[in-house]
């Protein structure tokens, strides 16, 4: 089993006024390639902080973060941006599509930043839209789509640069249960095709789709459930 991510004694400290807040207090976690994790815990427990750290959106105060065996903690902002672009796909609770762009433009945004040529980009967007069932909606604006369609567009965007890891923060939080099931089945299929997925949720039914469940409380790992 290949370890794609390894966290060792990760601390994340915020300065809130005079008070120091430990959002994460010494988290160590190995994440295997192709695994499917659900991170659970009460609000304020540090779930989102953990996800942001994993996705290189944020930098740990101390510890060690190995991505494919490389310590990325000292990477520059520019290098971290590049890691996000090539290795991670983000999926958010509120979809986070850019409202003034069409679905097509939203999906090809990562390809635009990685500098793909027009023909490849266009073909790639078409196949992504096909895969998430939005082939007919490419020229529409996000506001014209249903919540489920928007989330599928966001997933297509997250997949554009073929990242190894998908990070989802409450991806079904704004969706009804039928749509949530569709989205989770989509994520499940992606996991079966080899994507490593880490999702944050407080819904046990959603967490049930994952192979491993990580419970976090006050910035520390409480317990881990599921097969290894």
């Amino acid at each position, binding site marked *: 089993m290949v370890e794609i991510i390894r966290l060792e004694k990760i601390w994340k400290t915020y300065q809130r006024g005079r008070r120091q807040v430990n959002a994460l207090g010494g988290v160590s976690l190995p994440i295997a390639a192709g695994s499917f994790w659900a991170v659970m815990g009460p609000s304020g427990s540090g779930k989102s902080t953990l996800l*942001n750290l994993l*996705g290189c*959106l*944020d930098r740990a105060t101390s510890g060690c973060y190995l991505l494919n065996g490389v310590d990325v903690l000292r990477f520059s*902002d*520019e290098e971290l*941006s*590049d*890691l*996000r*672009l*090539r290795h*991670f796909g*983000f999926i*958010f609770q509120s979809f*986070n*599509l*850019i409202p*003034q762009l069409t679905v097509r433009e939203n999906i090809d*945004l*990562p390809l*635009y*930043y*990685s*500098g793909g*040529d*027009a*023909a490849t*980009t266009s073909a790639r967007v078409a196949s992504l839209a096909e895969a998430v069932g939005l082939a007919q909606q490419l020229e529409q604006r996000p506001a014209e789509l249903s919540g489920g369609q928007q989330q599928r567009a966001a997933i297509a*965007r997250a997949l554009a*640069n073929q990242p190894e890891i998908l990070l989802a923060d409450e991806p079904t939080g704004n969706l009804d249960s039928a749509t949530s099931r569709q989205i989770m089945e989509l994520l499940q299929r992606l996991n079966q095709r080899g994507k490593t997925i880490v999702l944050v949720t407080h819904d046990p039914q959603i967490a049930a789709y994952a192979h491993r469940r990580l419970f976090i409380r006050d910035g520390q790992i409480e317990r881990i459930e599921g097969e290894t």
Partner: protein
Amino acid sequence: MMRRPKIARSIHSGIRNLVLHRLRSLLTMLGMIFGVGSVVAMVSVGEGAGRQALEQIQMLGSNNIIVNSLQPIEEEAAGRSRSHMSLYGLTYADHRRITDTFAAIKRVVPVKLLRKEARFGEQTLEARVVGTTAEWFELVPRPLLGGRVLNERDQQRGASVVVLSETLARRLLALENPLGQMVKIGGSYFEVIGIIRSEAVQLGVMQTPDRQLDAYIPLNVVRERYGDIMVRRSAGSRVRERVELHQLIIQVDVIEQVESTASGLKEMLRRFHQAADYRIQVPLTLLRQAEATRRTFNVVLGAIAGISLLVGGIGIMNIMLANVTERTREIGIRRAIGAKRSQIMGQFLVETMVLSTTGGLLGILVGLAIPWLITRLTGLQTVVTPQSLVVSLGISMAVGLVFGLYPAHRAARLDPIEALRRE
């Protein structure tokens, strides 16, 4: 391989933003529109005025020095008493001295001006008689409309011939063919030998023997017929004055010697004239002054342009800062996807430049419309130079770049997590 240029997408995004907030964009661009518009308009008016002045000065000849007789102020006051006779101005002796003294002079053309009644049949007019030599027509070229101008032989044989200005000929002779007609001027008959075009030159300080109703007669003939004493009737009194020559036009061989000759001339005239009864004008000096004035004008213009563009730029910066705040979440999304700071920066810079350049283009339209209107309404000459348009457009883009830097920097510095959290 067709690589999509990133800048094209940023420009597209800028245009989309501009169209999305039409009114806001227009209000934002107003500063640029009026700034660029007024610059283009002012440059065109300045350029037009400058060119007109240059043309007029050049018409006087940049190789020439013009000396005019001038009635001194004390003479003017004394002239009010009945028996007094004013005596002032350039003399035949001046003419001779100047011709003999200066080596750099090519020719000196004397001019004597008189007001005389011109009569043809029943028609009478007060004409201005210009007594001069054949060389006048070489120095002050006017298109010949018919016949010929005065020549050396007319002078030598003291011929009673006259060249009329177009306007005078038409007013006096109406539809008759003027050439060969006998016209009575101040009691003597003259044969009309040529017609030249009247060119009205309005030049404030400049006085040229070129009014509308001119009759050109050889100088020696004028002296012989009318003498040097003129009687002017004004306000019930008769003013007598004796002026030998009203003007000397001195042509210098080469332009480099114009100014030294002018100062020599000044020295000589001062020695022989007790009163300041003459005025020396050097078109070349006027030309230099006009150019200096234009340069000053350009500096003032540049300052005004700078201020208006500064104001325009601040307006744009203000709206772009608002834009960055409004689109914080979008910036967060782009950063999460993997956009680098420099890419966010570039995007907002290009968008600002789209705004400022569009404003500049609209400003150029305004700047083209204003001179057109000025010319139509006032008849003032205006000249829109292509350079002023290119420079304006360049400055508009530069304004976008400069005033876009800070908002773009703000956008690029946003913390992606904070930005994503913003609603």
